[in-house]
């Protein structure tokens, strides 16, 4: 049967039944769990006398609340310690796989799923976290859920779902030198809007995604939700298979060929029918910087900030005015005139080894600007170890960056890594919402890890392509 998208195929194979409400009961192949959105769900199971239905498909770790400076227990923050004890107790009581510090596999949930080979093409994957679409990079149907839905997946391995529409986003041609997957992501959100993807799964396709590494694809799929799309995915190909081969949980020798055949079959058919197709030219994409309070409020690094007078839509204009007020920036200002106080490299968007390599290549031989606090938070213990084996930690430390333990850190700041007052950060994370980085008046500029590294050294936003010391 041709003419089907990957989305349609995975939806069909995972449909269990049509419920009386008209919703589909969808089987979840892999359930990822973290400490923040799960304790209430486990408590609901206890209240109802339910068990975890498929503990062998359920994997937990802790990432959001863990401190990154010292990870010694007990944590100094009592609330964080209590939350840690809750996930330890819950995973033990319910027999759930748990990647804690002792396993050497702890890390941001969307980093460890792929690096352990748990994330595989053709799966449905759910997690109580909106950035679950990251796993779509492998050709899986992955999406964030709330805590009551975490309860449903724990208790039944299923969710009540309605199908989405599928929008194919093709980016063709070749990216210019210095333009990274993060820039592609910010560009698409800028063009399609932060609500443009509501109701859609995004299929990322075309030359740019065909040529992109798995880690790059993860960065773009990760931020699908910032464009309103709960699901984003790339079709699996040789790049996907090469990445997975040999990973701890990936299919082994006897199963590998069988797995490849099924993964190839799950890709969208050449003549698949889409609800929408949108095409962009790779040549139009420049290194991007957000200047506002939504991930869509961004400009190319060499552009000036927009003039609110040019915006016709009343609601959009008000959001832009709110952004200027919060960010303390001025219309038509050059991005390179924005001084920064903090530089943060990490998160589920850009905390992988290739991100750290890209940032290290920029800072090597330079020093962080004296007025900037700069730190690197590897996405997982395994990323951290790999980076140290390559000596990246030394490059960062010699430049004046702090080298931290794995966690979500300042991406959402529910740990000690927080902005103070109205500090402004250059951040490789995914959200620039008001208050996102821990201070109600804190300000965030989103950009690629290489751009954050360059800004850390220059002390202000700078085009990484023209970056030189003191620029």
């Amino acid at each position, binding site marked *: 049967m041709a003419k089907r998208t990957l989305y349609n195929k995975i939806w069909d194979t995972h449909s269990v039944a049509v419920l009386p409400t008209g919703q589909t009961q969808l089987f979840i192949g892999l359930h990822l769990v973290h400490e923040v959105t799960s304790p209430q769900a486990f408590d609901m199971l206890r209240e109802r006398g339910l068990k975890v239905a498929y503990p062998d498909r359920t994997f937990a770790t802790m990432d959001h609340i863990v401190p990154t400076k010292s990870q010694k227990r007990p944590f100094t923050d009592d609330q964080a310690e209590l939350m840690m004890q809750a996930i330890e107790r819950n995973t033990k009581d319910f027999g759930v796989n748990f990647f804690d510090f002792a396993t050497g596999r702890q890390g941001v949930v969307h980093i460890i799923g792929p690096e352990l080979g748990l994330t595989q093409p053709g799966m449905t994957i759910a997690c109580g976290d909106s950035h679950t679409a990251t796993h779509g990079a492998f050709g899986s149907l992955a999406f964030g859920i*709330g805590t009551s839905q975490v309860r449903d997946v724990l208790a039944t391995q299923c969710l009540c779902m309605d199908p989405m529409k599928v929008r194919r986003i093709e980016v063709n041609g070749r990216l210019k030198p210095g333009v990274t997957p993060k820039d592609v992501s910010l560009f698409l959100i800028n063009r399609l809007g932060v*609500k443009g993807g509501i109701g859609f799964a995004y299929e990322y396709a075309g030359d740019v995604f065909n040529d992109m590494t798995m880690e790059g694809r993860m960065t773009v799929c990760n931020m699908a*939700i910032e464009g309103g799309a709960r699901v984003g995915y790339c079709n699996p190909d040789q790049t996907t298979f090469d990445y997975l081969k040999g990973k701890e*949980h990936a299919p082994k020798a006897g199963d590998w060929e069988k797995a490849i055949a099924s993964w190839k079959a799950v890709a969208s058919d050449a003549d698949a029918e889409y609800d929408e197709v949108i095409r962009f030219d790779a040549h139009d994409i420049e290194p991007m910087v957000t200047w506002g309070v939504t991930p869509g409020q961004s400009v190319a690094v060499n552009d000036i900030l927009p003039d609110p007078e040019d915006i016709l839509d009343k609601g959009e204009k*008000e959001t832009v005015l709110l952004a200027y007020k919060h960010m303390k920036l001025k219309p038509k200002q050059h991005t390179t005139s924005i001084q920064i106080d903090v530089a943060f490299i990490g998160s589920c968007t850009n905390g992988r080894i290739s991100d750290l390599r890209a940032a290290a290549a920029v800072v090597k031989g330079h020093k962080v600007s004296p007025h900037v606090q700069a730190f690197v938070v590897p996405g997982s213990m395994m990323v951290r170890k790999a980076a140290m084996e390559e000596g990246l930690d030394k490059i960062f430390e010699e430049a004046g960056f702090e080298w931290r333990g794995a966690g979500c850190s300042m991406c959402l700041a529910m740990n000690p890594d927080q902005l103070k007052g109205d500090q402004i950060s250059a951040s490789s994370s995914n959200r620039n*919402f008001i208050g*996102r980085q821990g201070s109600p008046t804190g300000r965030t500029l989103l950009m690629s890890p290489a751009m954050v590294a360059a800004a850390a050294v220059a002390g202000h936003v700078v085009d990484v392509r023209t970056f030189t010391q003191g620029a």
Partner: protein
Amino acid sequence: MSKITTLQGRAVPVVGDDIDTDRIIPARYLKEITFTRMGDYPFYDERFSHDGSKKDHPFNRTEYQGASILLSNVNFGCGSSREHAPQSLVRWGIRAVIAESFAEIFAGNCVMLGTPALVASKDDVARLQEIATERPGAIFTVDLTAMEVRVENFVAPVTMPASRRNALLEGTWDSTALLLANSLLVKAKAQVLPHPSGRMV
């Protein structure tokens, strides 16, 4: 589980596009391991200064205390999947949210709590917000059978996905029982689908 067909109450307007979940509930309140106190926190940083003094926010104004219908604009609830966001609104007293559009995860979370998230046209939302601003005592009726919101002599049609509406009308919005009923089918499905251990079937 209760069937939700009609709700009545006063409405509180929170005007703006792209009001995200970090604004609805700052991440530091997610450090609590129960939802019990979430009702203290909605829009916290917009309602309270650093020193704890009250700022001017609809959720702080006397006239909106006890309101049960929230009126907002485009892409309400965007960002995080944190159920803490609708939990904080519901525990504050909100029973229905009406907006021009919703972020998908947020809207789904609302329904899981038995709270309709209803979409109305831009002009109708503006009119509803105007009424709630000018006459905070006005009583709004949210009617899921007729799929409309009525206030004074104004009627606004509203929409939501049919399946979610059914779940509210039939009282099956807490979905665990529905899903458990098919556990044999689920078991059969689990046996024919790939496993995260890498085991192929």
